[in-house]
C-alpha cells in the first residue's frame, strides 16, 4: 500500500494530462453535435451544395480506395516478402506523402500533371488533361491515402509465415491459390484496417485537392471543400456539412474497432 501511495501524485498527474488531451480531442465534436438544431440539419441537407458534394466525395473516395487496394495489395505483398534493399528504399519512399504537408503534395502534383509539368505535356498530347478535373480529385486522394493502406497491408502480410505458404504448395496449391487461400485470409483483418484508414484519409483530403483539382461545385468540390466554401457564406451550413462528415468518420471508426472481433474470430493479430 505504501508503494502505491508513493506513486499516487505521479498517477494523478498522468490522469490529468491524459484527460486534458482526451477532452481536446472529443470536445470539438461534442460542440459540433450540440450546436446544430434539427431544423438546421434539414436546411443544410437541402442546400444545393450538399448533395453534389457528398455524392462526389463518396464516388471519388470509393474510386480511389479501389485503385489503392488493387495497386497496393501486390506492392504490400512484395514489401513484406522481399528482403532486398530496393524494397526497403521503396518502403521509405511510399511514406513520403504521410510526412509531407498536403498543400505541398498539391503543388507537386501540379508540377507533375500540369500543363508545364513533368508528364502533363505528354498526357495532353494524347488528349488527357488531369488538373482541375474529377480525375485530379481521385489522383490527389490516392497519393495522400494509399501509404496508409500499403503500410498496414505490408504489416499484415508479414504475419504470414513463409512456411505456411510452402506447406500450402506441397499440398497442391498453385502460387496463386496459396496466396488467395492462405496469405490473404490471414492478412485480411489488417487489410481491412488499412483500407478503412486510407478511406478516412481520402474522405478528409483537402489541401492537395484544393490546389490540384480546384473547388468547383459539382465537379471537384468534395465535402471538405464544400465546408470551406460554406463557411464563407453561412457558418451554420458549414456546421451541418461538418457534422455529416464527422458522422461518416464515426461510422468508420466503429467499423475499424469492430475488426478486432473479426481478428479474434480468425485467431490472429491484425497489426
Amino acid at each position, binding site marked *: 500500500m505504501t508503494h502505491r501511495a508513493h506513486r499516487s501524485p505521479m498517477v494523478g498527474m498522468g490522469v490529468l494530462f491524459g484527460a486534458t488531451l482526451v477532452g481536446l480531442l472529443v470536445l470539438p465534436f461534442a460542440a459540433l453535435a450540440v450546436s446544430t438544431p434539427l431544423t438546421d440539419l434539414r436546411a443544410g441537407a437541402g442546400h444545393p451544395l450538399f448533395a453534389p458534394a457528398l455524392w462526389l466525395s463518396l464516388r471519388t473516395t470509393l474510386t480511389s480506395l479501389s485503385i489503392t487496394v488493387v495497386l497496393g495489395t501486390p506492392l504490400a505483398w512484395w514489401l513484406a516478402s522481399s528482403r532486398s534493399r530496393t524494397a526497403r528504399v521503396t518502403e521509405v519512399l511510399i511514406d513520403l506523402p504521410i510526412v509531407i504537408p498536403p498543400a505541398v503534395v498539391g503543388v507537386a502534383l501540379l508540377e507533375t500533371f500540369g500543363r508545364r509539368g513533368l508528364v502533363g505535356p505528354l498526357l495532353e498530347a494524347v488528349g488527357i488533361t488531369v488538373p482541375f478535373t474529377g480525375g485530379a480529385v481521385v489522383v490527389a486522394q490516392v497519393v495522400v491515402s494509399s501509404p496508409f493502406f500499403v503500410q498496414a497491408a505490408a504489416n499484415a502480410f508479414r504475419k504470414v*509465415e513463409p*512456411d*505456411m505458404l*510452402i*506447406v*500450402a*504448395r*506441397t*499440398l*497442391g*496449391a*498453385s502460387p496463386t*491459390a496459396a496466396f488467395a*487461400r*492462405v496469405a490473404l*485470409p*490471414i492478412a485480411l483483418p489488417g487489410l481491412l484496417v488499412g483500407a478503412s484508414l486510407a478511406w478516412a484519409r481520402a474522405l478528409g483530403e483537402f489541401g492537395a485537392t484544393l490546389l490540384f483539382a480546384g473547388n468547383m461545385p459539382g465537379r471537384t468540390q468534395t465535402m471538405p471543400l464544400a465546408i470551406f466554401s460554406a463557411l464563407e457564406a453561412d457558418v451554420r451550413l458549414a456546421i451541418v456539412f461538418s457534422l455529416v462528415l464527422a458522422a461518416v468518420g464515426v461510422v468508420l471508426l466503429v467499423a475499424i474497432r469492430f475488426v478486432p472481433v473479426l481478428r479474434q474470430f*480468425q*485467431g*490472429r493479430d491484425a497489426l
Partner: protein
Amino acid sequence: MTTWHVSVATRVGGFELDLAMDGDTTPVALIGPNGSGKTTALRAIAGAIDVENAHIHVGDRELEHTEAGIHVPMEHRRIGYVPQGYGLFPHLTVQENVEFGLAYGPYHHSSTDRRAHASKLLSELGCASLSARRIDRLSGGEKQRVALARALVLDPDLLLMDEPLAALDATRRRAVRRFLADRLEAFGRPSILVTHDVRDVIALEATVVALDSGRVIQRGSLDELRRSPANDFIAEFVGAA
C-alpha cells in the same frame, strides 16, 4: 522397397548448400549445428527454393534433374512437409487444415470425399474430437498430430519434418516421440526429419546424416557415429544419450 536420392547444390544469400544423400524407408535424421543447412536442405527437397544443380528422385519419380531439364513444381511433388512450428493455417479449423490438401490442383477430391478422408485420418491419429477446433485452441502435442495428419492426407511419397518435437515440453515430448515412431512405421515410406535430440534417433531407429556448413560430414547408424564421431558436435550429439 522405395529408395530415394538427393543431391543439391545451391546458394541462398551468402550460404552455400552442397550435399548428397540417399536412403530407403528407414527414417533419416538430419543433425547439425544451427545454420548448418538442415532446414534449407528440406526446403530444397520440397522444391521451395531455387537450386543451381540438383538431382532428386523418390522411388521411380524424378522430381528434379537439372541436367535433364526436369523440375517438378512443389504442388506436384507428392512430398509431405511438416515445418518447424507446424505452420498450421490459423484461419481454418483442424478439419479444414487436413482437408486443404484434397481441395486443390492435382489432388482435388469432391467435398464429401474430402470430409470422409480427413475424418478417417484424424481419428486414426486420435484427433477425431478436435476436428471443429481452431488452431490456437490446440496444445503442442495436438498441433503436432494435426500437422502430421495434414501432411499424410495426400499419401505422400516422402515425408519431411523439421524438428517435429521441438515445440513440446519435456514430458509431452516422450509420448509424442513414441507416437511419431509408430506412425512412421505405419507410413512405411521414406522420411527425413531434422532433430537436435538423440532420443528421436533412437526411438525412430533412424540413420543419421550430419551436416556442417551446408555439407554432409558424416552419415551412418548411431553406433557408427559413436565409434568415430567426425567432429565435436557429433560427439556431443551421440554422447548425450
